């Protein structure tokens, strides 16, 4: 009888330890919030003397220039 009580006590203690240690395995979650930008505003690239606020024109120019980096469009691949 005494032996059974002692055995179940050890079992209970082991279970409690296991439950308590489970919490140690949890990873801390850091919630990150971006701060508010403190610097001067950034002018849009199309607000330049060259484009005078014409966003569409600037986008077309830049897209053509970017696509122009593809040498296969100039010399077709064999």
């Amino acid at each position, binding site marked *: 009888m005494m032996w059974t009580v002692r055995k179940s006590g050890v079992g209970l203690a082991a279970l409690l330890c296991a439950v308590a240690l489970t919490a140690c395995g949890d990873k801390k979650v850091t919630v*990150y919030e*971006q*701060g*508010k*930008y*403190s*610097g*001067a*505003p*950034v*002018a*849009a*690239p*199309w*607000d*330049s003397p*060259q*484009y005078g606020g014409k966003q569409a024109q*600037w*986008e077309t*120019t*830049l*897209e053509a*220039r*970017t*696509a122009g*980096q*593809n*040498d*296969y469009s100039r010399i077709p*691949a064999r």
Partner: protein
Amino acid sequence: MARMKFICDPNRCIECNGCVTACKNANDVPWGVNRRRVVTLNDGVPGERSISVACMHCSDAPCMAVCPVDCFVRSDDGVVLHDKDQCIGCGYCLYACPFGAPQFPQAGAFGARGKMDKCTFCQGGPGKGSEEAQYNKYGQNRIAEGKLPLCAEMCSTKALLAGDGEVISNIFRERVTVRGKGAEVVGWATAYGAPGGPKSGAAPAPTEGKK
């Protein structure tokens, strides 16, 4: 709206450092500061690869997250810029950046750091002022002139591509399709090792004839 990015094709980069020179020259970058540099992996070993590295203008930039004075901003076209008038030169961004992009000029004796300097995608910087003052602080603003960063425009083998992420990734994809290899040189598996594959830093396996 375009989302500006760089891609370097390691199969084309010949380690000429033309991009580094172009950047230094275009922006009058001071001695000791390199906004762009060429990194070679397995130098001298057959199959070595070089890539040109600068600020990658991350979509979720760690430098922005750690800056204690919040001097970083993302422009409308996705370029990460910083206001030098706000920067306190603490160096947190240098530790946070996985590419080593932030650079600090030696401003004086005893290792004192100046304000951070990095690639601006040739888009100048925040704020207004005389053109000369802006140039001295940030360098050229080629984007406002409808041009691309000079490093990419000067690249003789067109290894370094700059511009809207969608357009340049299509160019790179077409190259990989035409030559039948090259995609495996960049990416997560190459940097950190694929499960069951070669460890990171190992010389890339020959890919001739691989599909």
